[in-house]
């Protein structure tokens, strides 16, 4: 008997990250830049993690970077990942500096993934409401 493909829980944008998710819908990868110290950061948050300034704005990232770490998951953890494994989860060191946690690597066999591999963003339109930023080998 084949089990039905599990539905992954989709983002529920909140007051801290809704600008990011709106950007994804336009196929723009947004990160934040502190207007006081210049630090660029990810995840979206009200203040800078280096200087705590709330003077911040979103900038469009190039979408390029390299794999900082990865794991290919084979376990479905009960029903949760049925139909999705093997699934490669990645941390990306963006060209602009910050680590993007987390995303998936697509268009790449699990055995070919390496730390340091150049990647670029690719946007997956899941529904009219949700677009997920994923990455593929660059």
């Amino acid at each position: 008997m084949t089990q039905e493909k599990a539905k992954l829980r989709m983002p529920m944008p909140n007051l801290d990250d809704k600008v990011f998710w709106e950007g994804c819908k336009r196929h723009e990868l947004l990160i934040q830049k502190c207007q006081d110290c210049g630090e660029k950061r990810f995840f979206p948050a009200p203040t800078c993690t280096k200087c705590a300034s709330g003077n911040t704005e979103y900038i469009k990232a190039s979408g390029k970077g390299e794999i900082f770490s990865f794991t290919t998951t084979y376990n479905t953890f009960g029903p949760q990942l049925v139909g999705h494994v093997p699934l490669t989860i990645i941390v990306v060191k963006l060209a602009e500096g910050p680590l993007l946690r987390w995303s998936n690597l697509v268009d790449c066999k699990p055995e070919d993934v390496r730390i340091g591999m150049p990647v670029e963003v690719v946007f997956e339109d899941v529904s009219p409401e949700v677009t997920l930023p994923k990455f593929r080998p660059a």
Partner: protein
Amino acid sequence: MTSLKDKCAIVGVGNTKYVRGSGVSTLSLAIECSKKAMDDAGLGPKDIDGLLTFCLGEPLSMSDLAQSLAIPQVNFQFDITGGGNNGSGVVITAAAAIEAGLATNIMCVHAINRFSGVRYGAGGFNNFAAPFGKVQAGQAAALYAQRHMHDYGTTAEQFGAIPLTFRKHAIPNENALMRTPLSMEEYLKSRIVSTPLRLYDCCLETDGGVAVIVSSAEQAKTMRKKPIYIMAGAANTQGPGLDMGGDTPELYTTYGAKYVAPRLFGTAGITPKDIDFAQIYDAFTIYVLCQLEGYGFCNKGESGSFVEGGKRITYGGELPLNTSGGHLSEGYVRGMNLIAEAVRQLRGECGPRQLKDVEIGLTTSAPNPGGALILRR
């Protein structure tokens, strides 16, 4: 600066059986281990006037527990939201509250039905995790493990030395869930959960409860068992960086331990060399490696060779680890069973798995933020 060094002691520990399928509520598990800890200390309900717990996924109310144990008055209690990073933290918080006069005897309790109740992976509501299939703590651990192997050349056999050694420790432990020997061949052949972590790199989803009673050092001397003094402790110490681990490769595989260690050893007035054994938070093998480095038992990047072959980390070695089998083989009660084991080792109650001549032990809670206790007899 005032110091908590030796001001308080652990006077009672109690635990349920660790099983897969308890058939009872977490409140029932909490009641059982609490009664055992009270009996261990020679204390009754009227003596316990403080309660602390931490919970994630399954609520456990200390107010309910107080009523269930017929405690007539509670002077200090908190139900803390959080997971395995909190075990050592609640114990040192109990010591601080006692020293501040908020309560006299505080019981720290944790109980979970992690096998039969809310399973791991059922959380994951982070907008940047669940949509990408990152639903389980092991996947985060795997990302750190991958980076450790990449940066330091840590091998699968070095990872494997940890579950093999801890399994050996669990065999004489009647309350351990896993008591059959594990070979390197079995380890290497076991299924991959999430690369590079295999089945045996992951702890056991367990049903069980542990209670630990803290009192002032003065009161402790009058109680049933030999006091085990709290030399130092840390509750959820954290360094810079979002999420677990910071944003540089070095920080990424260090966790909270790096930030816990200086204050912890400083308060205790000792160095890592003075530690006779450690019960290291081992939800996943990579956490053990990173904490060995973070607490200064070896240099950064050298934990793989430190554990290789298992000799240093077993009976007679320079730093015996997880002498009950730890979370990997005894059971996973979010660090609290590690504290119970440390107390019993220092009391000399461990029978066939008793270490010889131990005076000072370390228990940890991880990953980041991190906590720890240094205990002595």
